[in-house]
């Protein structure tokens, strides 16, 4: 940098202030973040981990394009500032053909790089794609209600409200639907991204949890007055613990038949955890068909296991 290019004291002062401010601010944020559950980064299973890696990878590539561009813009603005010198001023300066090609080609190339990640990752992380693992998968039916989550374990014959327990390292297939509730979105950020739960539809979300612990889950899509309280805990435990939990649940619960279901479906806010046994096996199908049945021409839009066949 020649003497002519020296940064002026006032700009230097501004830059120092800006970086000092940003530095102090980042430090404060870092202090506040310590020990917290940064759910999307602290992933506890392969799906969430891959999603996190994709976020970070795409962010790095995009920043690699954006930051130099913006720095170039700042530099140009500074380099050709009025107070600097008028000897470099060339109002007739024209951009050439090459320039016009580059400004289209460069971002296109970068997007091509991103595209080569976007397409495969989208196919790979499609939520209804079945996951392979040593342990056999379990199925959990999920009904979004106003304003609580009902989880039905068809194989175990139990059901829970606002609480779901999962065996570790086991593929879990959630079948999401809603009953008498607006569109809701099922989200356990530590374990996987979200998917909508909608009346008359079954959306399948597959995930695996690798680390024992309690993870917050909730509706991410606004669905009425009780929205903020529509939370649940997802507990990941060893398979043995999971099985003994199923057994205890069977012993200590009320039954969920059609009448109990009618009571349960009434709107309620900040619902407590509840458990049920035995559970009427037709409840879930009924809840879905209710919105399809009388209009037979509209087949159930289920999305099942794209990757299996």
């Amino acid at each position, binding site marked *: 940098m020649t003497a002519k290019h020296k940064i002026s004291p006032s700009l230097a002062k501004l830059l120092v202030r800006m970086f000092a401010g940003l530095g102090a*601010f980042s430090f404060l944020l870092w202090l*506040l973040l310590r*020990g*917290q559950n*940064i*759910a999307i980064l602290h992933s506890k299973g392969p799906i969430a981990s891959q*999603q996190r890696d*994709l*976020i970070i990878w*795409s962010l790095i590539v*995009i920043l690699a394009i*954006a930051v130099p*561009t*913006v720095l*170039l*813009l700042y530099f140009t*603005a500074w380099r*050709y500032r*009025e107070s600097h010198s008028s000897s*470099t*001023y*060339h*109002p007739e*300066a*024209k*951009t050439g053909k090459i320039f*016009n090609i*580059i*400004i*289209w080609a460069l*971002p*296109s190339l970068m*997007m091509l790089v*991103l*595209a080569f990640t*976007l*397409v495969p990752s*989208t*196919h790979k992380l499609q939520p209804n794609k079945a996951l392979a693992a040593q342990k056999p998968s379990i199925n959990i039916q999920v009904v979004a209600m106003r304003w609580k989550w009902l989880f039905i374990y068809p194989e175990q014959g139990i059901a829970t409200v606002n609480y779901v327990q999962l065996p570790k390292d086991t593929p879990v297939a959630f079948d999401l639907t809603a009953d008498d509730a*607006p*569109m809701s979105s099922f*989200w356990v*950020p530590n374990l996987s991204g*979200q*998917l*909508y739960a*909608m*009346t*008359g539809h079954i*959306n399948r979300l597959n995930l695996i949890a690798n680390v024992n612990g309690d993870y917050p889950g909730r509706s*991410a*899509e*606004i669905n009425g007055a009780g*929205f*903020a*309280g529509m939370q649940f805990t997802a507990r990941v435990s060893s398979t043995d613990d999971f099985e003994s939990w199923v057994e205890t649940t069977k012993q200590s619960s009320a039954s969920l038949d059609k009448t109990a279901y009618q009571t349960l479906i009434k709107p309620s806010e900040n619902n407590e955890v509840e458990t049920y046994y035995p559970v009427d096996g037709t409840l879930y199908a009924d809840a879905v068909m*209710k*919105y399809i049945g009388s209009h037979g021409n*509209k087949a159930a839009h289920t*999305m099942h296991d794209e990757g299996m066949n």
Partner: protein
Amino acid sequence: MREFWLGRLTSHSLPHDWVMVGGTATFIAMFLFAAVILTRTKRWKWLWNDWLTSVDPKKIGIMYFLVAGFMLIRGGIDVILMWLQQVLAVDGSQGILSADHYQQIFTAHGNIMVFFVAMGFIFGLINYIVPLQIGARDLASPLLNTLGFWLYVGGVVMINMFFVFGGEYAATGWLAVAPLSGIDFSPGVGVDYWIWSLQISGIGTTLGAINFIMTILKMRAPGMTLGKMPLFTWASLFSMLMAVAVFPLLTATLFLQFFDRYFGAHFFTALGGGDPMMYTNLIWMWGHPEVYILMLPAFGIFSEVVSTFSRKPIASYTANVLGMAGVSVLALSVWLHHFFTMGASSDVNAFFGLVTLVISIPTAVLFFTWIATMHKGLIRFDTPMLWFLGFVTIFTIGGVSGLVLAFPPADFQLHNSLFLVAHFHSNVIGGVLFGIFSGISYWFPKIAGFRLNERIGRNAFWCWIIGFCMSFIPMYILGIMGATRRLDHYESSTGYQPFFIIMLLGGIVIAVGLTLQIVQILASIIQRGHLRDNTGDPWNGRTLEWATASPPPFYNFTVIPHVMTRDAFLDMKRLGQFDQQYEDILIPKNTAVGIYIAILAFLVGFGFVWHINSLVVISLIGIIIIFAKRAFSEDSEYTLRAEEVEKLEAKRIAKVPAHEKEVKSLADEEDMSVWDFVRYVITFAMDIIRNKKWKTW
């Protein structure tokens, strides 16, 4: 009989809680205050003749600014309430608002900011600047234009009407997605107000857009081919073309939702065989282009500003225009990225993810043309340019986060989180709002005849930047922590609270910035003698809006310029071509048709909200009659004779003191500081109190 005249309105619909009473009282107080002043100063006639019924796009532009400015404050107060709630509503506490009330506030906030602030300012700028830039004296259809403006005002009134009648607004989020917005889940009048506010203003937008497309295509000065059009005009053309393409879709969607709610149809209710997912599709087919309808004019503003303050023509003009064209076309085809999480197949998601990536290519091209424009320029950093640099910084943050969101699997995690909210605020504040601020400070001298105070402008700018970072950096982080948007309470164990506190503080800094902008305008008015610009061309401009006086006469140009190149006015200055041949000018007459129709349209909407069918029918008949009458009247223009033009010009020139005719330097050392302003206000108030000045009023 009661039902016939009053529908579902009962005494219970009148204000009964403190919010409603407060809102109603505020309206009445504001109205009374204005009425008293107007009566005391005998200004009613002036208001009606010179402003309300005016078809002059410059006056309509100013009225857009005023309404949008008020709505910006109104929407800003909502923000402070929302963030205060999120700071306080932790664990057992429900904060200051109930869940329902909180949801109404963020819904109203979103609607007001998008439809009545951003759209209002953009339409105001297009109204004021585009006719001047293309060297036109008036619009293709002045009537459509005033009608569009008054329908916009009708929408503004409708969205605030719930304070007075009914006391509830939609609690559904700004797009009122189905089935939440259906009659089963939202039985009150809130969603009806939402429907009719958007419906009325949306129709206004469509009409205004048609008018501006016709104006830009048909009314350009001789010699101004499309390839010589200024970039803000190009940007406005693209924006308006998009509006015409997608606003009818909004209108249709709102009608379908209205049929569901009013007549019990089942377009969007699953139980009756309808399809709520269709609503999501339809609303975003309009909704995504809508954000670009706002963004494109901002791009155009920045192109003008960068070129003027670099004192160079825009580099790669064609690439810039093609870039904007590319953005407009692609913006019509990415809507599904708003609901990757609804369960479409991976092929569909990947396709829309790819198109979303592609849209950033033409955007990047725009950035490169700006850099090349600055290259070898002689750049001045007046406030319009500062807003440009702020835009570059913050819009880039928004663009980067947007590209991350374009990856469907990444979006599964980030959708509906505060990360998403931070993304679009980076774009809407850093892009649209900063564009508007840049445009207003750039064109203010044209509009007012004096430039804005630079010093306070710079203070305001820094408040916005610092406040933005304080508010939205923590918001991105909260999203990564898994915080969803729209939470009216949460547990302290989540660790969110400190971040919400910082966000609120940032919001206060932004509020200070906004206040400073108001102070800036007031201080500029006080110091207008010092800031006056009599040349009509304070920045050494390049395009035709600078070729006429500031403020321009109501006929815009005494002589319509002949355009030879893109920098039409720069050429004129270089070649000294200023014809002085006065000619007869056709001027459109004022009309109150716009106001009348807008009032009736408002009443139709109000009638539907409250099921007052008599009101609906009567108002509709009224609209038809007014249209018919207008269609048969041929008396909509008059001729301003050349001699009169000459006289007017002579009068105007005589008013300019001789010593002020030369270009005033823009040295801003003498601009008032904030403290000077405070001192001035105190002295002024003391003077009034001491000398009992109110007695003479």
